[in-house]
């Protein structure tokens, strides 16, 4: 059973197609990054998967059940993009209310709430009203409410919005912890760096259409970039590198970025450079930044 499954999922608002026949499967325990420009249909997709928005056509299943089914929702956590709250509630009361909505017994609530406040860095703020919280603190309490029920699937819509660098790192660590615990994470984010750091697979949506899904390696089209740092790199040597791939960038006469098809070519390239008189200091495989891939894929689809 998939943790999340969308079958020809479609949403139209009048003549505008927000999401067009989206087919997607997310495995249990997977961290899935969902990327797209503003207005691409990411939030509408998440809302359909959670039962907040009714699809115009198609079907969504979360943990094998229709979105909105209380049996499934008992195992789902959600942090909305624009997380809003009841400002008159204290942090502890807010979590208590949401825990009661999950049907959590009083004894478990008494144990779980301080534990979560500690986990999101809000220990000591239990009795403070949410109205007095900063944006970052609200994001943290929102994360805490999404994790109250020990969820099997968590939807995080822009979880690092409003967080400082330290907070963003904590969220990345939290996502890793969730993955280690076997929790499925569906991550909507504009922060490509955090998606890159945390996600097993990525889906890219453009104008309502899912245009690519795969691991970062798959999205890169099976190519690998290698940074070569050497002295005595003659123009002939640089031209000679073309037999293993494409020279993407050259910085002076000592640094070259080569795109090659396979990792096995690396020792051969190193040996060839040394044999031909280059003084090789480093030959470093580097993953292509997700930002480059994203821009290339989205622009390529236009």
């Amino acid at each position, binding site marked *: 059973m998939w943790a999340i499954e969308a079958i020809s999922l479609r949403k139209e608002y009048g003549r505008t197609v927000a999401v067009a026949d989206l087919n997607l499967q997310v495995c249990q325990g997977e961290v899935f990054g969902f990327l797209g420009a503003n207005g691409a249909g990411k939030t509408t997709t998440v809302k359909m998967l959670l*039962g907040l928005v*009714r699809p115009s056509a198609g079907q969504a299943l979360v943990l094998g059940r229709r979105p909105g089914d209380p049996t499934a*929702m008992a195992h789902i956590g959600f942090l909305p993009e624009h*997380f809003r*709250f*009841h400002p008159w509630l204290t942090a502890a009361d807010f979590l208590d209310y949401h825990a009661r*909505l999950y049907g959590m017994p009083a004894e478990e609530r008494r144990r779980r709430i301080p534990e979560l406040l500690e986990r999101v860095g809000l220990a000591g703020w239990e009795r403070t009203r949410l109205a007095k919280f900063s944006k970052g603190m609200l994001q943290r309490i929102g994360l805490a409410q999404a994790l109250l029920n020990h969820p099997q699937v968590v939807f995080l819509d822009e979880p690092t919005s409003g967080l400082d660098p330290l907070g963003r790192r904590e969220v990345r660590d939290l996502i890793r912890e969730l993955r280690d615990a076997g929790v499925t994470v569906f991550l909507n984010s504009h922060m490509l760096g955090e998606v890159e750091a945390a996600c097993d697979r990525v889906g890219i949506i453009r104008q309502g259409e899912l245009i690519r899904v795969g691991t970062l390696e798959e999205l890169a089209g099976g190519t690998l970039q290698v940074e070569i740092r050497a002295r005595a790199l003659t123009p002939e040597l640089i031209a000679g590198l073309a037999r293993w791939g494409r020279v993407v960038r050259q910085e002076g006469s000592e640094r070259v970025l080569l795109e090659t098809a396979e990792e096995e070519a690396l020792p051969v390239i190193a040996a060839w450079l040394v044999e031909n008189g280059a003084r090789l200091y480093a030959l470093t495989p580097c993953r292509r930044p997700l930002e480059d891939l994203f821009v290339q894929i989205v622009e390529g689809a236009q």
Partner: protein
Amino acid sequence: MKVWLIAEMTFHEARQRRLVWIGALLGLLFLGVFALGYHYMYQDVSRYAGAFTTQVISAANGFALMGLYAVNFLGVMLAVIISVDTLSGEIASGTIHTIATKPLRRWEIVVGKWLGLLAMLSLFIVFLCAGLTLITWLIARHIPPNIMQGTALMILCGTVVMTLSLLGSTYLAALANGVVVLMLYGLAFAAGWMEEFGAIFQNTSAVRVGIVISLLMPAEAMWKRAAYLMQPGFLREFGMSPFGAGSAPSSAMVVYTLLYVLVILAAAVRLFQRRDL
């Protein structure tokens, strides 16, 4: 049942927004002003009427009805204020997103909110009616007849308005919803008088128009029945007064109004279930 949790939260919200306290304070102020006015009125009427007990009772009851009329009006206003953005506000702000994705059905959210608002409205009306009755008893040893039934009907009157406002809040923004509900109430108010004048002048067309509008919006009809029950028999014979009623909608109308509330609530549930959040 999550319904009770939502009801509790709705009530808690009103308390935190100081609606309950402001309502209680203004209610006390209203009762204070009423007590003062009632005291002077009763003093003057007793002095001039002397032994004419009927006139004294008539005046005591007339002024009590005037107070109850104001309570009913305040109840209607409170019904609109507390419910006008109860769903639309949470939808617009996005607060609903974390609630509607919890393991509960959407009908539980609507019915829970309705119960919370009903509790608040009932408390307000019962508090004012009880206070007003205590004042009339302390000053004139007068208790309006059928005050319990009258209070229940006033709660039903406010409930009609509140439920319609809840229905509107599933789709309309607060301001538009408030305007629609108050206009409907105004229409029912005018229809109530049209029906009453029609009955006096035996104009069947006016009576029919009044009845049809009362069926569409039965809030004012409940006040008319409450007022009819809470005035002494001889005043009923006397005919209509600005705050009472010369004729009363039947018990069948009360049953109809209860069904009306249930149907409107069901419509609110249905609309909320179908809308995108």
